[in-house]
């Protein structure tokens, strides 16, 4: 079975994340860039299947700037067999429609039985790419799975929503997105890091995907970007036995009770 895992590089949530005030795009220069934790969990689902079933082939795929190579290398050192990087200057600032069209084209070219993705990225929080990719490929999408069970010809699992859970399944090929209820990802080990250097990392341009920038052109436009003033600390007390009462007074004074 061939599984392609869609990994996205994002600004590290542990750092201060910024938007460029002029373009409204994520400022990717001033921050550390990492593979989104949720994409790593998607990769973990694929790798744990590979642990059990040696015939499993795992490809990590990312569309992003040249720095996305680091994330793909990390995916290889965690245990993926190969990596595909869609890289093209025309993709700077790509919106969801554009991103999904490009990923769908790259997936078609790479070939797969199953596509795994995160349910929502921490920078955009759009949560739409997996469903859009599936729609473009004419495939079923099982979104937001807390539990993923991959079988020979099908995939099933538990889907989590705001309103509860559902048991769902689809026949392969299919697109699946996972939630952070799936297990935490493994760390690359020394052997993995050494062997990753010999693994193949294919870089694809739009032309190599047979796409013209104009056929997929983005339509979403940022009009303005405003930074909110930072919050500051207010009153801080140490409890000496009556802090609960003081808090009640504070809330009453602010008309919050």
């Amino acid at each position, binding site marked *: 079975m061939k599984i392609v895992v869609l990994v996205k590089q994002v600004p590290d*949530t542990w750092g201060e994340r910024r938007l460029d005030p002029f373009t409204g795009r994520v400022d990717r220069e001033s921050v550390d860039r990492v593979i989104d934790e949720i994409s790593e969990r998607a990769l973990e689902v694929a790798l744990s299947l590979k642990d059990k079933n040696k015939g499993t082939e795992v490809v990590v795929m990312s569309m992003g700037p040249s720095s996305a190579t680091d994330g793909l290398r990390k995916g290889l050192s965690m245990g993926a067999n190969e990596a595909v990087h869609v890289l093209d200057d025309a993709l700077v600032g790509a919106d969801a429609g554009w991103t999904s069209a490009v990923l769908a084209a790259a997936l078609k070219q790479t070939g797969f039985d199953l596509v795994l993705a995160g349910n929502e990225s921490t920078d955009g929080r759009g949560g*739409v790419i997996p469903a859009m990719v599936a729609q473009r490929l004419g495939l079923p*999408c*099982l979104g937001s799975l807390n539990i993923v069970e991959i079988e020979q010809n099908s995939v099933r699992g538990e889907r989590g929503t*705001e309103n509860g859970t559902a048991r769902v399944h689809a026949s392969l090929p299919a697109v699946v997105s996972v939630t952070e209820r799936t297990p935490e990802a493994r760390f690359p080990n020394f052997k993995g890091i050494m062997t990753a250097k010999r693994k193949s990392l294919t870089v694809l341009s739009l032309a190599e995907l047979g796409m013209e920038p104009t056929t997929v052109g983005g339509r*979403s436009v940022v009009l303005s*970007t405003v930074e*909110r003033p930072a919050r500051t*600390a207010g009153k801080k*007390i140490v409890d000496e036995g009556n802090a609960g009462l003081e808090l009640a007074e504070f809330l009453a004074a602010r008309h919050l009770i």
Partner: protein
Amino acid sequence: MSKVLVLIEVSPAGEIRSTAAALLGAASKLGEPVAVVAVAPGSGASLVEQLGSLGAAEVFVGESDLVGKILGAAEVQAVTAAVAATQPIAVLVSNSVEGREVAGRIAVCTGAGLIMDAVDVREDAGRIVGTHSVFGGGFSTESTIDGGLAVVTVRQGAIEERAAAAQPVVTSVPLTVDISSAGVIDSVEDVVVSSGRPDLRGAATVVSGGRGLGSKENFVIVEQLADALGAAVGASRAAVDAGYVSQMYQVGQTGTTVAPQLYVALGISGAIQHLAGMQTAKTIVAINKDEDAPIFDIADFGIVGDVFKIVPQLVDALNASK
């Protein structure tokens, strides 16, 4: 007036979800609200009156036996048919797990552009403009679509506008749904939240507990304070991971984003990913026994101390003053 489609979320039991009122309210700011529902044949009529009272000027009913049995495909088909029939300027969908998947697919099917996770919408010279709260409210941006239909996912609990009641015109159409490319639903567990507490999204007051509560049993004091304040209950990811409460209560980067009048953090350290979900609250109160906990950097009122001593005292004081 231009038409604005609203995809209404319907529960497995056939009831209209609570997100409908805000979506129709948002639509009324842009044009004439048209509610779209995908339902089993014959079960649309019972929803019409309620949708009218929430402001739908028209109700477009897509009927299929497959509603509730497959993931999203009937909803996508219903909206696509309604787009062709009504030529709207925008389609509004709830920014829920189900809603945003459907929204993305509608955008692909209709060639529309997406405005994602809008906290407000307005019309400007024929264009739809969405406001977004980015990186936990650190930035506010506005976006639009460069020509053509806009599909907007609207953040739950963000829109206060409500539409005036209307007598809706009803159109029913049978849907032809392609099941070859659909995910199949085997069973559903729809958790009916019957706590009597307000919904976390849009609540005026939220009381959240973290790993500092130590156990599921101890988490009860979070609920007691929430009830004394008439608040919704929230939690940190560590509290959810430890099994104190269900994932639906998670506040933060990968949980719910809240912007209440009052946010009370109990035994929560204030990791950056938690702050991303609550830092735009009007007033923040924190109780933590570690005086260096980062939550204090953004708290309007911080108490260094033990939640198990302070919270019961506070609850007593609140209940006594009622």
